[in-house]
């Protein structure tokens, strides 16, 4: 019986059912898509690992104590000869490789910037089972020859037999002949993944990459039938200490592990966003179910009146939720598989990852789809369903039956105990200082605290969650723990605050929407609408041009792809037309809310007239002052015009239309609904604002550092900064030193795993520069120093590092480098600003003895007094022009560049959050559609007494905008708090200046208001098209 009811409900209102499903479906789709995408990526990568390192038996390399492949010391050249003597060894292939700093310029001197790194390595002539597959020409066999990877060859302006310029750590080499092309790791070239691979004859590679000092590693192929263990033993005996022998399998595993790590990081980031998406979808689902049940109170009351038990009512509702979940699971999973596959395909077009797109479907993917689809839906539907149990049979008879929220019964002892337990939990969690304890315990404590306090006192209970969140936030800001613990505490505080604000936001909805629904919304809509209209208009023109171009293309060169392209060109047109119409609607709404066309037009006209009058009067006055009496007429007329305009000002009409007021009232009428419709958007915008505040503070910190501690005039940095090892040859700095215009030139190198401090055995990050000269460029706030100690074995340390280890000027300790040598260093200065160098700086001379890369990561320059900016630039560029991969910046340019990079990261972050925001908007759309549905009779009534369908449309649009801005205001406010707290928590070496970007945050609100209009368009159309007669006779 109950199931029949459920079926009827679903089948009878298919539109409503689909609406309900859409939010979960979208959530499932994204999560499943992420799994399909990353699993596919992992599959192709793990095959690749086998291709790359699968065909050697053994490898010899230096043994390192810490750190990875980036700075493994090199092997002496002679080792290769020793290995050739070992019995059982068939082939010995020494390898030289540079990951990132070997650049080939093509015929247009274009540095071939792609998505992949610029890699240089030696041609492997000695390997019987090759991993380089020659495609065209021949292998490089002498100095000044190179072979290039096939796809890069095709992409750039290259010609076999041509001469090109190559930049390498050893310097810039002109006139290098391109003798051949090859594919890497597999015959078909799938593995390059956008990397630019250049290969050289071994000895020349040794020279230009490692400056002749040695190989990176040596691989061996063994004769058939020999025991690798025995050979390994013989090799060990032959090569002596400091070197290690590993199997080809081990190399392959390491490679696979590296790939895995990369994909893992990627997957984690994506899953964090998926998690956010899910929370947002859960909010939407919860809201939708609450509304649906609210709408059906009379029906449910009738069921109860004719004898259905509370349990049966719940079963009916949960059953419906279950159907929604199943639908979402099936459709969402199917869409998700398509989505993941498309994403992979799309990124491949940009050379992201190796070619090849297996569709890898693991059981976990489907399990997640099911868990999310069904469990999230059921979990979100349970609370509203449980409330429905209390619907009385009388509800069927009442006109305005409302679902009341049950307040838990007070139970003082229980409440006090649970509350106390929650506090103890927090103290315990914080005292462990472990993030994986703080997060779960903190959340449990938050729930316990709310549960407890609600049983102590109803009013207190309402604010319990919020207050708890505030306390956690305060603890995070003021406590002295390590950063990870503090940030996780902050995360818990954020979740708690979301819940807290959510539980009190119904109380806020009425007053806030009452306030916002007037001029603030009009201003936001006006600004956002004008911007959207302009963007939409430009986009429309652009897409029309695109259609024109593709039409020309079809006419001149008819083929199927062209025809397809022509039709595809209409998609952007449709999208930009939609954008334009949203923009126009928003502007329209703004006028109706606060401004009105008459007001603006007459106001503007009066303003212009007044301004002309004022200008005339001023000109007259000026002439008068110079003694030109003839201008007195001008002054009089101008003054009169101005006066009239001033007086006319009062007649500028002001209008506040009733539909705007009704929209505001509607938003305030069911505050709980407005609040929960807005909640999803609140979360999305809170995260966006948090990121914005952090990014902006990061920029402000950077500007502050540049302002207060940096005195250099010019900055030379590598164009590609994603790669920690990227830089340029040390020859560049040497060249700059030779210029008469430069006063001093300082080079910087840096490593995250530079050396071990032997007194505690920890691996340390460190910078290196020429200490003696560095103060002329950058002052890390040195508080104590002894300049006479500066020299090869000097070290500058941060105050904290010094205090922790009781170092003072003149203290000595030894550090162990990865090449196995240790050095004793002497503290020559103590500084307090760790934001530039980190905590330790050693001298570049010492550094160069242990790191053989020959790559500077950064160079700063001061110029001789009296040299003009452009003069200096010309001079510096005579040196740097030889290097395609460097930026030469003045202070301002450097700051702009760094800010640009931070902005880019922010954009990527916001794009990822966009999905969550879109789902949140979907939630607003659903809420409005349902409430239009619910208010049919009322809407019919106002239409009957004379509201035009245009006015009706606008009314619902306003309501969408009000809901969106309500959520936006809460979100931006919370985000600002979170962002500021994060800035405080993040160590000063990263961010030390708090900067709240008010303009950006207001922009977000303007965008939110316009997005609210966009979300409301479909429900508003439905409302506007209601048949008046049907509407009033319904019910």
């Amino acid at each position, binding site marked *: 019986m109950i199931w029949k009811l459920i079926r009827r409900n679903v089948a009878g209102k298919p539109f409503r059912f689909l609406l309900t499903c859409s939010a979960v479906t979208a959530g499932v789709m994204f999560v499943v898509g992420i799994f399909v995408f990353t699993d596919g990526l992992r599959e192709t990568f793990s095959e690749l690992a086998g291709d790359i390192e699968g065909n050697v038996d053994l490898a010899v390399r230096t043994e390192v104590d810490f750190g990875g492949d980036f700075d493994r010391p090199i092997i002496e050249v002679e080792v290769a000869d020793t290995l050739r003597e070992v019995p059982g060894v068939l082939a010995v292939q020494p390898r030289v490789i540079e990951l990132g700093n070997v650049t080939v310029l093509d015929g247009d001197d274009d540095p071939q910037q792609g998505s992949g790194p610029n890699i240089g390595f030696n041609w492997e002539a000695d390997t019987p089972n090759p991993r380089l597959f020659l495609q065209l020409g021949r292998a490089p066999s002498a100095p000044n020859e190179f072979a290039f990877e096939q796809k890069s060859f095709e992409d750039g302006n290259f010609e076999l037999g041509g001469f090109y310029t190559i930049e390498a750590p050893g310097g810039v080499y002109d006139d290098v002949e391109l003798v051949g092309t090859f594919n890497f790791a597999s015959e078909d070239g799938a593995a390059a993944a956008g990397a630019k691979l250049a290969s050289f004859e071994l000895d020349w590679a040794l020279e230009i990459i490692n400056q002749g000092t040695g190989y990176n590693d040596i691989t061996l192929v063994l004769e058939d039938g020999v025991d690798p263990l025995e050979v390994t033993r013989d090799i060990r005996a032959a090569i002596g200490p400091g070197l290690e022998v590993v199997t080809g399998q081990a190399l392959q595993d390491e490679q696979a592990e590296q790939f895995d790590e990369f994909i893992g990081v990627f997957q984690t980031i994506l899953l964090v966003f998926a998690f956010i998406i899910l929370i947002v979808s859960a909010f939407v689902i919860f809201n939708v179910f609450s509304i649906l049940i609210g709408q059906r109170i009379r029906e449910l009351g009738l069921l109860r009146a004719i004898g259905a038990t509370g349990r049966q009512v719940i079963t009916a509702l949960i059953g419906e939720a279950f159907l929604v979940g199943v639908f979402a699971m099936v459709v969402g999973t199917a869409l998700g598989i398509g989505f993941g596959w498309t994403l992979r395909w799309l990124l491949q077009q940009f050379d992201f990852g190796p070619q090849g797109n297996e569709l890898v479907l693991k059981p976990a993917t489907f399990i997640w789809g099911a868990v999310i689809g069904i469990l999230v839906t059921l979990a979100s539907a349970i609370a509203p369903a449980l409330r429905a149990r209390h619907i009385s049979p009388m509800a069927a008879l009442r006109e*305005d039956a409302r679902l009341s929220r049950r307040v838990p019964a007070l139970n003082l002892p229980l409440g006090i105990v649970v509350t106390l337990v929650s506090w103890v939990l927090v103290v315990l969690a914080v005292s462990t200082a472990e993030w994986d304890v703080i997060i779960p315990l903190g959340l449990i404590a938050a729930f316990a605290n709310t549960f407890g306090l609600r049983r102590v006192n109803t009013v207190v209970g309402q604010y319990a969650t919020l207050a708890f969140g505030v306390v956690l936030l305060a603890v995070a800001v003021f406590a002295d723990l390590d950063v990870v613990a503090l940030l996780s505490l902050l995360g818990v505080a954020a979740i708690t605050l979301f819940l807290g604000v959510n539980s009190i936001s119904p109380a806020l909805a009425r007053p806030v929407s009452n306030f916002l629904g007037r001029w603030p919304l009009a201003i936001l809509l006006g600004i956002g609408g004008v911007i959207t209209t302009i963007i939409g208009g430009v986009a429309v023109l652009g897409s029309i041009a695109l259609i024109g171009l593709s039409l020309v293309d079809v006419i001149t060169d008819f083929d199927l792809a062209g025809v397809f392209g022509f039709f595809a060109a209409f998609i952007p047109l449709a999208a930009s037309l939609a954008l334009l119409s949203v923009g126009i609607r928003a502007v329209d709404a703004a006028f109706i809310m606060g401004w009105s066309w008459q007001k603006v037009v007459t106001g503007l006209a009066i303003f212009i007239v007044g301004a002309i009058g004022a200008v005339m009067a001023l000109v007259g006055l000026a002439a008068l002052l110079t003694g030109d009496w003839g201008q007195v007429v001008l002054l009089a007329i101008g003054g009169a015009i101005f006066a009239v305009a001033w007086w006319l000002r009062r007649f500028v009409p002001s*209008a506040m*239309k*009733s*539909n705007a*007021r*009704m929209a505001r*009232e*509607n938003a*305030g*009428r069911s505050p709980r609904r407005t609040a929960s419709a807005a909640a999803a958007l609140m979360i999305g915008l809170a995260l966006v604002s948090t990121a914005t505040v952090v990014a902006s503070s990061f920029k402000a910190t950077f500007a502050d550092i540049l302002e207060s501690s940096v005195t250099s005039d010019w900055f030379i940095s590598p164009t590609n900064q994603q790669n920690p090892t990227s830089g340029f040859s040390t020859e560049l700095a040497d060249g700059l030193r030779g210029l008469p215009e430069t006063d001093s030139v300082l080079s910087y190198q840096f490593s995250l795993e530079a050396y071990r401090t032997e007194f505690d055995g920890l691996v340390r990050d460190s910078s290196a520069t020429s200490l003696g000269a560095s103060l002329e460029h950058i002052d890390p706030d040195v508080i104590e120093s002894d300049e006479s100690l500066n020299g090869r074995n000097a070290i500058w340390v941060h105050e904290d590092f010094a205090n922790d280890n009781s170092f003072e000027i003149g203290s000595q300790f030894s550090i162990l480098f990865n090449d196995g040598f240790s050095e004793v260093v002497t503290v020559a200065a103590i500084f307090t600003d760790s934001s530039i160098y980190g905590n330790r700086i050693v001298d570049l001379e010492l550094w160069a003895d242990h790191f053989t890369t020959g790559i500077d990561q950064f160079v700063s320059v001061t110029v001789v007094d009296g040299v003009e900016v452009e003069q200096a630039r010309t001079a510096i560029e005579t040196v740097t022009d030889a290097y395609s991969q460097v930026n030469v910046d003045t202070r301002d340019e450097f700051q702009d560049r760094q800010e640009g990079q931070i902005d880019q990261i922010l954009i990527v972050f916001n794009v990822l959050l966009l999905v969550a925001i879109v789902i949140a908007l979907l939630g607003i759309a659903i809420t409005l559609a349902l409430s239009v549905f619910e208010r049919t*009779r*009322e809407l019919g*009534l*106002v*239409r*009957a*007494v*004379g*509201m*035009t*369908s*245009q*006015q009706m449309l606008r009314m619902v649009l306003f309501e969408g905008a009000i809901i969106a801005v309500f959520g936006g205001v809460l979100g931006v406010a919370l985000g600002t708090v979170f962002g500021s707290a994060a800035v405080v928590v993040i160590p000063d070496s990263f961010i030390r200046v708090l900067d709240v970007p008010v303009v950006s945050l207001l922009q977000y609100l303007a965008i939110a208001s316009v997005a609210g209009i966009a979300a409301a368009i479909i429900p508003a159309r439905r409302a506007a098209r209601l048949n*008046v*007669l049907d509407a*009033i006779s319904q*019910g």
Partner: protein
Amino acid sequence: MTQATVTTGPAARAVGAKKYYGEGDTEVRALDDVDVEFERGKFTAIMGPSGSGKSTLMHCQAGLDTLTGGQVFIGDTDLSALSERDLTLLRRDSVGFVFQAFNLVPTLSALENITLPMDLAGVTPDQEWLDEVITTVGLADRTNHRPNELSGGQQQRVAVSRALASRPEIIFADEPTGNLDSTTGTEILAFMKQAVDNLGQTIVMVTHDPLAAAYADRVIFLADGKVVDELLDPDVEQVLDQMKKLR
């Protein structure tokens, strides 16, 4: 005393009005060639058995619904010639409505409900007239209440005030007292009668109640979509007799 705008001719009329639902065997003639005139400044009641076409006539006459054939006029305006938008504007400016129930917008206060059509039109209500209407209806102390804080009778009075406030050509009321007890119903009827007699308003009311019909200046009887009879200055007895004949 302010009078509704007086022009010559009936406030509203239907000429050969037809409204058919369905086709063939299932065709229902809700209005079958109805000719009727509603005199200006008069209180007209429409009566007839259930399903006789009373509501349909009213809806079509008021511009809420369109005819299958024939014409309806408000004043001199032929509604069949108007666009949907113009019909809406006509309703807003020239027609008032009172329904059986659910007359008011729940989010708006009583006063806001009363001025709603004028708000929608963007015109400022005539304050004096508004005060007069509100005082006459006896709602002066209730204007800031929301509908759910008012009794059913009070809600209907607000609805009547709304219809009166913009001084429309004509007010249509579909069983305005259908949901009320007899005392409250009587109050509303007396009030409407007063509006006609004292304020010169034209009102057309659909009702099943002979007592209610007795308040009207004229009763029109419908049966099977046709006007079958009419009474002038009716009393309860006459109406009852007539109704019995129609059954």
